[in-house]
């Protein structure tokens, strides 16, 4: 029986630029119960254009790890229904996206909520639970 080499290999990581947006379905879930599966479903998702996903060998429904020096989260990947010519990735603003936001503010008190650099890689880990973003 051969050794499953793949098990020990790290999934490739790619650098992406992320920005955040607002979504009324997520806002509805927030009003109802921010600890609900519905809120998690709308928040713990990253959206990318078809070309970007193809380039990284990723597909809709994949679980991906997004990480940078500020944090690390696991979210679900979804293909954008729109044209995304800039190659940007998108997340609805939430505690999940905020786990990746830099604390650098230039002393101005406003973090770069919409300008996030992160690495993306395929993972089999579970989607990050909201409880682990509190502690």
């Amino acid at each position, binding site marked *: 029986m051969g050794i499953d080499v793949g098990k020990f290999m790290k999934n490739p990581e790619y650098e992406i630029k992320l920005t955040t947006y607002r979504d009324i379905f997520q806002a509805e879930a927030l*009003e109802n119960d*921010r600890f609900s599966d519905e809120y998690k479903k709308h928040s713990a998702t990253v959206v990318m254009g078809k070309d970007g996903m193809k380039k990284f060998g990723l597909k809709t429904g994949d679980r991906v790890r997004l990480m940078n020096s500020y*944090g690390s989260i696991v979210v679900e990947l979804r293909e954008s229904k729109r044209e995304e010519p800039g190659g940007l990735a998108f997340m609805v603003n939430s505690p999940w996206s905020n786990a990746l936001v830099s604390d650098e503010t230039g002393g*101005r008190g406003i973090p770069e909520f919409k300008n996030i650099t992160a690495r993306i890689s395929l993972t089999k880990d579970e989607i990050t639970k909201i409880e682990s*973003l509190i502690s």
Partner: protein
Amino acid sequence: MVTCTGCALLCEDIEVVIENDRIKESRNACRRGAARLRGCKNRLAPSFNKMQTDIDTAIKKAAEILKNAKSPMLFGWSNSTCEAQVKGIQLAKKLNASIDDTSSFCQGLLIERVLKKKFRTCSLEDVRNMADVLIYWGSDAQDSQPRHLSRFSVFPRGESRQRGYEEDRLAIAIDVRESNTAKICKGHFYRIPLKGDREFILALMDALSGKVPKYDAKRILELAGIMKKAEFGVLFAGIGLTYSIKEDIDILVSLEDMLPNFHVMPMVGHYNMRGFNEALFKETGFVNRVKFEGKPVHDNKYAVVEALKAKSIDALLIAGSDPLSSLPRSVLPHLASIPVICIDPCVTLTSKIAAVTIPAAASGLECSGSAVRMDGKVIEMSKVVENSYLTDAQILTRLMEGF
């Protein structure tokens, strides 16, 4: 009719069906508003050190924390009534505390300029009655202020705009993403790169002064032509624009100065953020980030984000906000080492780590009060359902009595 506190449009035309002191059904509200009117699933209970207690003990413990703190901060306020905001400012004065609200990392930069009359602005009724060119810039109103387009801007007939969007109005979107609002602005969506707003403004200013803009010359010249010809133009400045040009926010003032028929309106999310900014401005001349040291002192170091980073506060009272949800996790570690007092109708991420939790009535539903709409109009809210919760203002009054 009920007033909705789902966003800073404060829609006053909501009809509701009440059953067992809860709103069972609502009409006219958007998806978010309807959810807010139904109320949250998990109501907050009074607690101290994560043990449930009675409301009197919770308030007493909160007063003790504030009394013993050397540099407390009072934060939140965008989901509080004007009456509670005034009490909050009084409490900050009494404690020599710092006070800040969510506008500190949201639309405060723009609201400050509106209140200082650096921007020409207008009312939402003016928009409905007169506006012919509507520019949503870094703003997805369809998802953030969902009835903005239908009640005030794109779709309604107005006094001077009887033919509505079909002939009398032109809607334009400038954004990094083709948002739901941008989709409505068919043929007039200008996609810009991330952090590209400043460069776009400069190109637009070149075009307005008769120069050939440095990039996308044809489309920028076309847009400048539309803006110049506007009889009553409105630039709805969203948070996407504010964040992108935060280092040089006055460039937007310079752009508006070149367009005498244009008005700027900050697109505010939380229902009474502007109310807090106006109340603090009236009291101190500043819209946020103030510390009372006998007299009010304004400094960026009193911004909640900077104060948490610098670990310069030793207690934090939070009214109607959930910083654990809305702030970067990278600035939050200090929260775990100081006592947090959380006043809110609902269980939040922040209430889970708070030393003291104090449940409050949901304003506009369980208590009456006033709030300031995104354009500065004061809106009165009535109590709709019976309940026994204290209001934010009552809680703050009782806290002050504890000193």
